């Protein structure tokens, strides 16, 4: 297969950056999107040009490292698929493909298609710890968990933190990510202990990092490669309101609404 690629090239964080056109030929319909880029990079290297920098790691859709904004959609045209699991057969032969980095003020471009997503880690860190006893391995099922809760917690925990929700959101809001992270702990007894504090700290950190606010367009849910539900955002809102309005004692200190 043959494609015209329009790829965002940017030397470093200070460079202005621009779209550059490349032609690729001899692409197998069964090669993944990243393998297609590998082929392009081989061409560029043999011509003595700088290869295109992009993030990738496991290439089996479970690590959350890859992420490209392809023709106006994070991770490209397929539902529930990461960029590494997207194959070139999903495109028309000869199609023009725009490839851009995630865009958010909180995700500065490092180089070409690589952005710094450590803001998401900062939100996780703000959530703090959970209280579990160290020592020997506990017997299975010593803490009863209702089956529906276990299922919902597992669905939320499927989030790989790739940032596609931020990239897709018209407001660059990470609320699907934060909602998933809050939900997967809030639904389990082990996570309830610090739940009141956790939701307030994570939301405060998300706001402090300059992310936008959710406006319920649900583009995040449509683009999430792990198909995380917006029910998790509603749960985060519930947890937050409960923590602010109905906590036993104030657990963050000071006045924040």
């Amino acid at each position: 297969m043959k494609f015209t690629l329009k790829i965002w090239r940017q030397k470093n964080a200070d460079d202005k950056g621009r779209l550059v056109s490349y032609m690729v030929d001899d692409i197998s319909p069964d090669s993944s999107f990243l393998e297609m880029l590998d082929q392009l990079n081989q061409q560029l290297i043999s011509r003595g040009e700088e290869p295109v920098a992009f993030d990738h790691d496991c290439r089996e859709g479970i690590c959350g490292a890859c992420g490209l904004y392809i023709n106006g959609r994070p991770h490209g045209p397929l539902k529930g698929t990461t960029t590494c699991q997207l194959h070139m057969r999903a495109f028309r032969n000869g199609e023009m493909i725009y490839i851009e980095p995630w865009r958010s003020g909180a995700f500065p471009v490092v180089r070409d298609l690589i952005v710094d997503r450590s803001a998401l880690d900062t939100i996780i860190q703000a959530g703090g710890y959970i209280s579990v006893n160290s020592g020997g391995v506990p017997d299975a099922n010593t803490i009863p968990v209702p089956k529906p809760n276990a299922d919902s917690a597992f669905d939320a925990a499927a989030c790989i933190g790739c940032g596609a929700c931020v990239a897709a959101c018209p407001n660059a809001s990470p609320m699907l990510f934060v909602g998933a992270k809050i939900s997967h702990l809030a639904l389990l007894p082990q996570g309830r202990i610090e739940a009141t504090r956790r939701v307030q700290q994570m939301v405060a950190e998300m706001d402090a990092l300059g992310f936008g606010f959710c406006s319920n367009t649900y583009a995040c849910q449509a683009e999430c490669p792990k198909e995380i539900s917006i029910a998790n955002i509603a749960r985060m809102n519930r947890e937050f309101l409960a923590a602010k309005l109905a906590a036993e004692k104030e657990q963050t200190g000071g006045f924040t609404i």
Partner: protein
Amino acid sequence: MGATGQKTFSSIASKVLMALAGVFLLVFLAVHLGINMLLLVDDGGKSFSAAAGFMSSYPVIRIFELALFGGFLLHIVFGVIVSIRNRWSRPIRYQHKSRSETAPFSKYMLHSGVVVLIFLALHFIDFYFIKIGVVAPPPGIERHDFYSRAVLLFSDTTYSAIYLVSFVVLGFHLNHALQAATQTLGLNHPRYTPLINAASTLYAIIIAGGFMAIPLRFTLFN
């Protein structure tokens, strides 16, 4: 001040305040439509004038009027603040237009909100400012006579056209309103959320259709 030194409203608190004010405005629209429907009663405006007279004189309603202005102000101010913040959160925009699937009309709440706000300003000049005596009523019409005022306005095709367009836009705004508000307030349920989405659309159709029936009655079938 909290752990991160935040002094303003959080993202979720801003959204919740907007949602609560919005739900209050939804109730107001239903009341307003109920009264306006009396314009369709063929009694020369007697029942409409009676209802309008009650609304502008009964003390409890006067208090609600202040709450209503507060609701509008809150919804608009937070809408503007949140929209500005959301613009800033993506300083460098994509080259390719977004092709992500979104809830119907949800991306255009600010745009539709601005159209409705312009209509609201017109509506204030045409009715409220005349009622409180800031703007002089047109010759031959007493300032509390809303019925004659409405009949006169709807006899103007341009005004009727502006009115109709405004309510189509309001309909789209409302289609996303109730269901977005429930999601923001943390209400999401496998069984009830689809029902709320349907109710949201139905409510939008009733409100927009109901208000639009009035100029259609006066301009087309008079």
